[in-house]
């Protein structure tokens, strides 16, 4: 059987399939459905320094083969994550990635300092959050802003640092290169695409924040393009995601240059879909006579 093991940021992933941030909680609920230890890793719900209650109003909206969400980073805060969730997550026998968001640079830095002293394997810096000091424009839109943020974080970060890019970035290749230069050791992408829905009967936006994030199969072709662009723009490894719902989808991302993939929305479509995805990837490799998955990373 083909080798699916990947060494990513010096951590061994038993396979390239990671549960995506915000779609898998802290793994506990899905662990009641299947042994989440079969996954390569789990990216935690997006954490912020201080806990957040998240957004009010409608938080979910289905679109053609897509899902819009406006959860607003409801989370217990970094400290509570470390004290309440970390230990249980560690028992799952998979890599634990702490997804960290922040409204100010100071929040990011303080969050990283706390995580430095925790058991997390990797920090995934989510720069899609609105920068409260810069009028709500996300850290991940302009390369210069991202560069400064990542550089400052890198200086104090003692964990392997993966930066999660937003597809709303002005220029994804430039953004990828800027984050690499600033010291990111890996990239993950894409986060959700800015999108909108209107309730025509109520004559107002469905979401209280007007815009919300689009994910799911609908965005896969765009995500794949961006992963391909980012992977071509940098030397560091890339973790690809956006609409992955099958082993074939995952293989597309690997061929486009991703060393790992994350699965988000598809978990909702079928709760144990990651089990299928891992199996389908293995079947594909075997059927095509590919001995090692690393042989096809970025071959397109």
């Amino acid at each position, binding site marked *: 059987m083909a080798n699916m093991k990947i060494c990513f940021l010096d951590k061994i992933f038993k396979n390239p399939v990671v549960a995506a941030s915000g779609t898998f909680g802290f793994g506990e609920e899905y662990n009641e459905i299947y042994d989440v230890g079969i996954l390569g890793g789990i990216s935690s719900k997006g954490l912020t320094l201080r806990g957040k209650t998240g957004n009010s109003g409608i938080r979910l909206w289905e679109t053609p083969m897509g899902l819009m969400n406006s959860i607003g980073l409801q989370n217990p805060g970094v400290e509570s994550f470390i004290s309440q969730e970390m230990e249980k997550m560690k028992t799952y026998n998979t890599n634990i990635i702490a997804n960290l968001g922040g409204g100010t640079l100071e929040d990011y830095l303080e969050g990283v300092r706390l995580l430095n002293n925790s058991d997390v394997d990797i920090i995934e810096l989510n720069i899609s959050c609105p920068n409260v000091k810069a009028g709500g424009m996300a850290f991940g839109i302009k390369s210069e802003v991202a560069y400064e943020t990542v550089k400052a974080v890198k200086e104090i970060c003692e964990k392997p640092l993966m930066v999660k890019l937003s597809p709303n970035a002005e220029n994804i290749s430039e953004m990828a290169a800027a984050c690499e230069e600033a010291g990111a050791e890996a990239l993950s992408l894409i986060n959700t695409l800015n999108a909108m829905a209107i309730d025509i009967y109520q004559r107002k936006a469905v979401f209280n924040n007007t815009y919300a994030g689009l994910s799911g199969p609908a965005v896969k072709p765009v995500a794949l393009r961006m992963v391909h662009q980012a992977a071509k723009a940098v030397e560091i490894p890339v973790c690809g995601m956006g609409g992955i719902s099958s082993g074939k989808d995952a293989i597309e991302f690997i061929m486009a240059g991703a060393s790992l993939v994350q699965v988000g929305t598809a978990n909702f*479509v079928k709760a144990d879909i990651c089990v299928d995805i891992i199996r389908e990837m293995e079947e594909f490799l075997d059927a095509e006579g590919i001995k090692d998955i690393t042989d096809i990373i970025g071959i397109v």
Partner: protein
Amino acid sequence: MKTSLSRIIENIKVAEGIYKMTLDVDTKPVPGQFYMVKGLNGDYLLPRPISVHDYYDGKLVLLYRISGHGTDMMSRMKEDTEVQVLGPLGNGFDLEAIKGKTAVIGGGIGTAPLYYLAKEMKKADMDIYLGFKDIVYSIEDFENTGHSVTVATEDGSVGTKGFVTDCVDYDKYRMVITCGPDIMMNKIIRTCVDHKIDIYASLEKRMACGVGACLGCVTETVNGNKRVCKDGPVFNGKELILSE
């Protein structure tokens, strides 16, 4: 609890726009729990949350209203084909807590989960109140549970004309259990809290994961945001912060 394929034993229309689907399942649910249900080749993404309407001998019965594309697709599914189900999910009603005279008040398709409750609690001192707009269903089933059943329709075609909430003499009851449109439940919760009657409400929210992971279905409570799918769908009315 796991995602599995269930065979459709029966899928019939019981009233205009109301269908009943019977499935093979392997776990006995608690009244008030629900399943995430999805056809295999649906042209939509998310499974739909549907309550347990009845359960007997490994058979799960769902009573559902066509209220959009997903439920429309569900209504077209044929016997002997398979559906994807995840469940039973959620807390369900706390049957132990049901003591003393209890009013069970359902509105529209919100009556669906109450039948299994009434059936499982045959011995409880329970009065059933069912409110509909115009089309009624399941009334006989409820009557067969042995509990007293009061029906109201907005157009007066069956039972009392008007809102079923107006048929209830709240002070007779130690506890009220309700499921229905938000506006109805909010009214009942306010009344019960005022009258210091125990009140449990089964809520509906848009769901994605159905298991407590995505935080898409939260409702505000005095103890912070709670997930309707995992911490609910049944909540103590006193805990809820009502929207209007």
